[in-house]
Structures are given as structure tokens and as C-alpha cells.
């Protein structure tokens, strides 16, 4: 999927760019000539080799070699799009399932003066795109699909979604020229060929060099055109959805991008390595909880108000977001204002839809994994993580004491003065590499402490003394069950710091003179005096 908010997009207003466009077109023709020329040369090599009457094995090697070199060119020219869209991502939704969404899209297409898509697919990423399965080097139009990321439906307002979809449709509006579309497809062909050559070696590396310099020249030429196309699509979007909605949508997208990535790693996919997932409808749908949280929202505000000003790559087809926003915000007031709410209100029965999108997105084997509600998931994932961290410590304990590894057995080893022996059996932390003496001992003890803390947490959690509660505002951390703590556990500010007595007890285990007494006492108090 090449078109979209983040990737390159075809089409656009070509006014004032005709000189560059002609040059780009010439370069594109050159690209095809280079491709076909190289192919002809390779065929000629094969033919000449056959005529020269080479030995069978040598000839076979030449055939294979030329075929390897020809393949990227053939695939680049003929199969660039077809290959990549054989299995379109997401879930198709028909007009009967999502009438409001379809009607809205049709209206937007009409307003933009272009034909509506034949298919709408809801995807699992922060992206919206229109894709056309064109044929014959991109000269013939094909089936047009619109992709809408579920996170956008959740995180954009209805008018912001209008702006985003209008922008995408704008790339295909009447103002576009077929030439621009061709130029864009050439870009995709070239990058595809280049990517294929990048994987090869030897003569392929030589071909990579040739194509690289050619493609760089081409990309630099077309970049200015693409940027103008993006600005034109933005302006068209502003006309349809209003200045403020368009600008705020552009600001919202990087925030949603960052926010959704965070949401996946810290919530939806937090337990994936341990075979734990949220329920299918919440896998994507749960994003709304994060967006609704005031603290997280404040963090995202920072992105919304200060857009990242990355150094633009000369090959980037999109202008920097900050520049696009500035152009839109400089438009005169249009009295349209900003709307509110979530575009999810345009979706009929979002829960089953998001569940279907999630299932399509997760690999087949993932669909069989354990599905939990959020609270159960966070606890289970926290425990699984801690258990994994404690594993090597238990292994070392078992190896040194020969018994069934457990926390008390480990503490016995520490009491016997074997703490550093245990620590030396754990995986060496990066920091400790190349160190020696006491510095190394301390680095290893730090690693030991992490794993000991994890083991203590698992032990306490399994005894029902604590766990990893769900919070949409904070990272998931182990917390002792309320009321289990001695009254002294308040810090200077008066807030209860549940970890404090535990930390002190852990510190004592790895102190200069290791003492397990505090920890043993605390574990006893917590687990037996409930």
C-alpha cells in the first residue's frame, strides 16, 4: 500500500510543474529503456553463450546468472503493484454493513470530483489511503480501494476524518493528470527494483549501484511535484472539511501514530510474547481508553502542539507535517470551526468490526491465544514478565543448591555467602562486559537485584498479596495489595509508597554485608498475616 498519510501518494495538481513533470517523464521512460535494454543484453549473453557451444555446466551457470539479474527488473516493471496488493490488508466492509461510512465517502468523492472507491477496507494501523490496482505499467485504471485505519476512526473527529479521506481522494480528483499517476507508479517500480537488487550480491550489487543513482535522480526530480500534490490535496481537504478541522487532523495524526504505537507495546500487545491478548474487540478498540485518559492525553497534546520537525529526506514525497499544518493554518478563517466527538460514531457496531479487523491483523496462530479482559491481561502479562526475569535466578539456585528452586532456597545461598556466585551465573549485563574486580561484582549484583525483585513479586502475587493493576495513566508496575503494608510506608510527601519497604529489604540482600533477614521477615508478614 503505497498511498496514504505516511507513504507516497500519486496524482495531484500539476499546474506550474510541467517542466519538471516532463523531465520526470523522460527519466521514467529512461527507466523502462534501461530495464528493457538490460533485459535484451542479458538475453543476448544467453544467446551468444549458446552459439559459442559452451560446456553444459558453464552454460547452465550463465543462464542462472542472467536470470537472477533479470528477475528484479521483470518484477519491478511488471509486478510492482500486483504483487503488493494480492492480499490487501484489513477487512472489507460493504455498504449494507456500514451505510453511513459509505455514504460519507461517496459524498466526499463527489465533492472532490472523482469516482468513489469500489471497496472500503478497515485496517489495524494509523493510516488512511486510496489504492488503485492499475494495469499495464499503470496506464489503465483499475479497481479503487479505500483503506481506513481503525485507530483513525477512534482518534479522529468526524470532520477530521472527512479531511483525511478528502485528502486521499484529492489525489485522484479531476485535477490530476494521468502523467502524474505514471510518474508516481514509476517511483514505486524503481524502489521495488532497487529493493530486490539490494538483496543480491556480485553483479547484482553492480546493478544496484546503477539503479540507485538513477532512482535518486528520479526521486529528487519528482519530489517537488509530490510535495505540491500533497499541498494541493490538503487545500482540497480544507475546502471540504474546513480549515480548522483539516489543520487539527494533520496535528492529530502524528499524535495518534505515537499514541497507537505506545498503546500496542504497553497494552494491546503487552502479553503477546507470553500468549496473552485482550479480547478481540478490545485489541484495537481499547485505544479509546488511552485517548480518554487525561494524563496520556496531556502527553499527546505535547505532540499535537509541537509537531516533530524532522530533517526532510530529499527523496521524501511528503512535505514535513509542520510545513503542511502551517500552510493550512495560514488560510483565512472560514467560519467552519472545529467539531468534536469520535468518528467511531459513523461506524455501525464498532465492537464486532474492530474484532474482525484485529483477527485479520493478528497472525493465524495468535488468534488461538488466551483472551483476557484488560485487568486480567495486565496482571497476567506483568506476572509472566516477572516470571521470565526470575527464571535464570531460579535456574542458578537449583544448580547451586541441588534442590527445588525457590525464594527461601536462594536466600539460604545468600546467607552462606554465595550471593556473588549466584550472580555470576546470570546472563552478563552489557554494562559489565570487560569490567573486572569490584566494579564487575557490583554490576552483576545490580542484575541480580532485578531478578530477585521479579522473583519476590511473583512469589507475592501467587500468594495473593499483590499484582499488576491496570492503569491507563501509568505504566504497569507491581503493587502490593492495599492494607498489607506497615503504617510506616509513607514518604515525605505523605503518599504511600508501597514499594519502599520491599526495596529496602531487597537492598539489604545485596548490601556490602548481605542480610536476608528483612526480606524473610517481610515475606512472612505479608503472606501469613493477611
Amino acid at each position, binding site marked *: 500500500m503505497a498511498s496514504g498519510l505516511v507513504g507516497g501518494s500519486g496524482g495531484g495538481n500539476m499546474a506550474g510543474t510541467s517542466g519538471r513533470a516532463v523531465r520526470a517523464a523522460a527519466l521514467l521512460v529512461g527507466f523502462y529503456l534501461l530495464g528493457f535494454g538490460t533485459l535484451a543484453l542479458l538475453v543476448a549473453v544467453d544467446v551468444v553463450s549458446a552459439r559459442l557451444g559452451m560446456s553444459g555446466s558453464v552454460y547452465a551457470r550463465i543462464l542462472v546468472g542472467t536470470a537472477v539479474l533479470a528477475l528484479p527488473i521483470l518484477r519491478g516493471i511488471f509486478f510492482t503493484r500486483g504483487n503488493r496488493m494480492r492480499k490487501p490488508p484489513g477487512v472489507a466492509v460493504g455498504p449494507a454493513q456500514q451505510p453511513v461510512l459509505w455514504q460519507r465517502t461517496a459524498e466526499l468523492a463527489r465533492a472532490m470530483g472523482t469516482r468513489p472507491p469500489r471497496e472500503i477496507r478497515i485496517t489495524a494501523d494509523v493510516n488512511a489511503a486510496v489504492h488503485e490496482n492499475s494495469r499495464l505499467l499503470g496506464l489503465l485504471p483499475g479497481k479503487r480501494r479505500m483503506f481506513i485505519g481503525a485507530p483513525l476512526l477512534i482518534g479522529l473527529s468526524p470532520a477530521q476524518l472527512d479531511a483525511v479521506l478528502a485528502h486521499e481522494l484529492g489525489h485522484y480528483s479531476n485535477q490530476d493528470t494521468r502523467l502524474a499517476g505514471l510518474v508516481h507508479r514509476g517511483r514505486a517500480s524503481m524502489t521495488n527494483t532497487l529493493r530486490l537488487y539490494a538483496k543480491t550480491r556480485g553483479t547484482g550489487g553492480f546493478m544496484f549501484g546503477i539503479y540507485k543513482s538513477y532512482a535518486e535522480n528520479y526521486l529528487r526530480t519528482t519530489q517537488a511535484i509530490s510535495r505540491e500534490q500533497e499541498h494541493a490535496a490538503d487545500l482540497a481537504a480544507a475546502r471540504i472539511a474546513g480549515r480548522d478541522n483539516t489543520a487539527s487532523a494533520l496535528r492529530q495524526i502524528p499524535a495518534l501514530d505515537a499514541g497507537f504505537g505506545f498503546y500496542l507495546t504497553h497494552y494491546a500487545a503487552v502479553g503477546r510474547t507470553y500468549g496473552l491478548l485482550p479480547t478481540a474487540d478490545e485489541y484495537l478498540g481499547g485505544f479509546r481508553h488511552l485517548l480518554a485518559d487525561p494524563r496520556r492525553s496531556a502527553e499527546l497534546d505535547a505532540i499535537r502542539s509541537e509537531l516533530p520537525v524532522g530533517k526532510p529526506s530529499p527523496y521524501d514525497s511528503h512535505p514535513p507535517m509542520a510545513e503542511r499544518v502551517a500552510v493550512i493554518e495560514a488560510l483565512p478563517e472560514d467560519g467552519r470551526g472545529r467539531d468534536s466527538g469520535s468518528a467511531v460514531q459513523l461506524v455501525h457496531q464498532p465492537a464486532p468490526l474492530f474484532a474482525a479487523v484485529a483477527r485479520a491483523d493478528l497472525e493465524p496462530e495468535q488468534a488461538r491465544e488466551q483472551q483476557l479482559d484488560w485487568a486480567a491481561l495486565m496482571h497476567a502479562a506483568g506476572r509472566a514478565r516477572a516470571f521470565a526475569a526470575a527464571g535464570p535466578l531460579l535456574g542458578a539456585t537449583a544448580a547451586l543448591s541441588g534442590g527445588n528452586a525457590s525464594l527461601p532456597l536462594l536466600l539460604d545461598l545468600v546467607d552462606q555467602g554465595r550471593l556473588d556466585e549466584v550472580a555470576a551465573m546470570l546472563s552478563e*549485563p552489557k*554494562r559489565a562486559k570487560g569490567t*573486572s*574486580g*569490584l*566494579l564487575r561484582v*557490583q*554490576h552483576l*549484583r*545490580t*542484575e541480580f*537485584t*532485578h531478578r530477585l525483585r521479579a522473583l519476590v513479586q511473583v512469589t507475592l502475587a501467587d500468594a495473593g498479596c499483590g499484582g499488576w493493576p491496570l492503569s491507563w495513566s501509568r505504566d504497569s508496575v507491581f503493587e502490593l495489595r492495599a492494607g498489607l503494608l506497615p503504617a510506616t510506608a509513607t514518604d515525605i510527601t505523605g503518599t504511600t509508597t508501597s514499594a519502599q519497604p520491599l526495596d529496602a529489604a531487597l*537492598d539489604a540482600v*545485596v*548490601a*556490602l554485608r548481605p542480610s536476608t533477614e528483612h526480606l524473610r521477615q517481610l515475606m512472612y508478614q505479608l503472606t501469613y498475616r493477611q
Partner: protein
Amino acid sequence: MAGILDRLAGHAQPTRVDPGALAAAVAAARRKADPAAPAGPDGRTVRAEDYGLPTVQQLRTDLPVEDPALAAALAAARAGHWQPAAQLFWSVGQDWERRYVCTTVLASQAAQDDAWLRAWRQAHPQDAAAVTVQARSLVDLAWQIRSSNRAQDVSRDQWDGFFRMLNEVPALCREASALAPEDPTPWIVMLPTAMGLQWPNEDFTALWTEVVRRAPYHVKAHLAALSYWRPRWSGSVEHAVHFVETAIASAPRGSLLTLLRLDLLNSELRPDDQQQRPAFWTGDQVRWAVDEALADLAAADPGQLRVGALRSWLARILTLEGRHAEAFEQFRQLGSFIAFEPWSFSKDGTSLYLTTRTTAVLGWEDAGRPPLPPLPQPAAPPADSLFARYFQQI
């Protein structure tokens, strides 16, 4: 040795050197092929022997002072024997400045391998010197774990280890102080500890009271305390200037504490902008601070252990000021032990010293070998300097 000690005393985080000087230092390091003759800015060289200066081979950065007993105790500790160290502290007695130097040198050895120290502790559990060396070795170890990176580049793991080590120090210092109540050394060891543990200002001030009660003009203690008051730790430029001026005002001439002011000029008051630096170094404020330091030095006991520390700062800044005759004189007097700031800022410990020295000597030659000017008269600081505010208050 100089690394951790000086970081703690003056530069808890990456040492900052004039990048111009650093470039020169790098250039000098590249000319290592002929190390005896580092070239001046225009490629000219100076033969150290011709000027009665130590050659590169004669320079010493392994120990901060020339002290055969300390060198012997260090060698013995490396070999696993504690007795010479114990003997050393016995003979040093109440020379607090020297006692602290011996503590840091032996502690940095113990931070690598503490077998000898553990044996000492076991043989003489009541020896305050051993306890203090152990405490100080943990401070060293803490900083090695933390590394001298900027705070934001220190990992969570490093902070864990750093605090774990520092948290062990107070109990040991208390133990040492109970054994030797008059000894300021354990209290001085507490200064970088309190800084690392980010003690609140009033707690630190209380600790400082204990230090100065036992050793009112201890130079290394003052440098350690100054670190705490820097903006990057728990103070500000104002705090630092106030601390420095109070210390200098309450000390007699000859205390060497004027070096705090020179340190401050280089570390906190120097403009960030390279372009403005030459004007800064040749300005009235620097001239006044240097003149005060020269007067302080003239009044000092030449046997004071930290004389070289003040000379080093003077040699550097006098050169930056273009007062080459006076700078040359400081280099001549400094001798071959140069494990002092600012020389220790350069990685090899000598390149900044050598390039600065070459500049001073060539400058002196270019001026036609002028005689040493008379000692400057004491004066008030320039009215527009930050020092003036605090100088007058005191």
C-alpha cells in the same frame, strides 16, 4: 588516579575544557612521535631542558604528590599487603590535607581490589583510617558504576548501583568518625556522597559545619563542597559564588582557597560562546581573581600540599590572559607532579599541560624574555563582576 578524585572534587560530570585548548591538546597528542617537543600554535617547539622545565618523560600523573611513603604503601597494597598503608596513616597523623590525599589514593586502589583492605579491616577493626579508606573506595566505585556521563545518559541500572554504593557510605563514615572524632577525613568523604545522594541544602550545610570545625581551610574539602553547590548538582551559580567568596573571606591569606575562584571562572562563569572567550579571559574580573590568587600563593607555606593545585590553575589562566612571564614562572615552580586540574581534564593527563606550557614559553620568548612583574597589590573586585556582590557582603 586523578580521574575519579578530581571528578569528585571539581567535576562530577564530564570535565569541560576550552575546546580551543582541546583541539591543541589533540594536535599535541598526534605529535606523540616526538613527545619531548610539543609544538606551539605556529609549529615552533620548546626544549624543556633549555628552560629548566620537566621533560615529558619526567612528568608524573600517577600520584598527586611526591610522597615515597605513599607510593610504597600503594605498591604494597597492590601486592596485597596492608601494613605499609596502616603505617603511613600512623605517620601522617593530623596533616589533614595529606591524610585525605593518602585516603583517596589508597581507596582508588581498593575500589579495584580490596583484598588487602579487608585483611586490614579484619586485623584492626578499630582503625579509623581503614574504615575511611573503605568508605572512600565505595564513593569511587559508585562513580565508576555511574560513569561520568551526563545525568540523562546514565541508565537506570547505573543509578541503582550508584545509589546502592553511596548508601553504604554514611554508616562507614559514622563508624570512622566515632573512632577518630577529631579527623575531618570521614566527613570530607561524606561530601561527594551527600552530593551524589542529592542531600537537601540544609543537610549539606550541617555536614559542612562538621568539616570546617575540624579542618577550616582544607582545600580538597572546599573543592568537594563547591561541586555540591554547582548548578548541575544541588546549587546554582549564585550559590557557588557565594560559597567561594565566603570561604576565601574567612580564610587567612596563604590558605590557597583562591583557587576555588579560578575553578569557578573556568567551570561556571566562562561564556559558552567560543567567540567571547578571549575577551573573558583578558577581562578585569579574571585579572583581579588571578592577582588575588598570586598574592594568596605568595603568602602560602611552600610546603603546603596543594600549592601545585593553585599553581596549575594560575599557569593555565595566566597563559590565557597572555601574561606569559608570570605563567612561565608558575610552570617553572610547579615541578613534574602535574596530576592537578586543569591538566587532568585532558585524557592523557599531559597534553593540555604541554600545549599551555609551550604557549607560555614562546610568548615569553616573543616578548623578549621580560622579567617577572612585581606582585600585584590587593584590590577590590571589579564592580560589575558577580564576585563584587558577595565580596562586599562579607
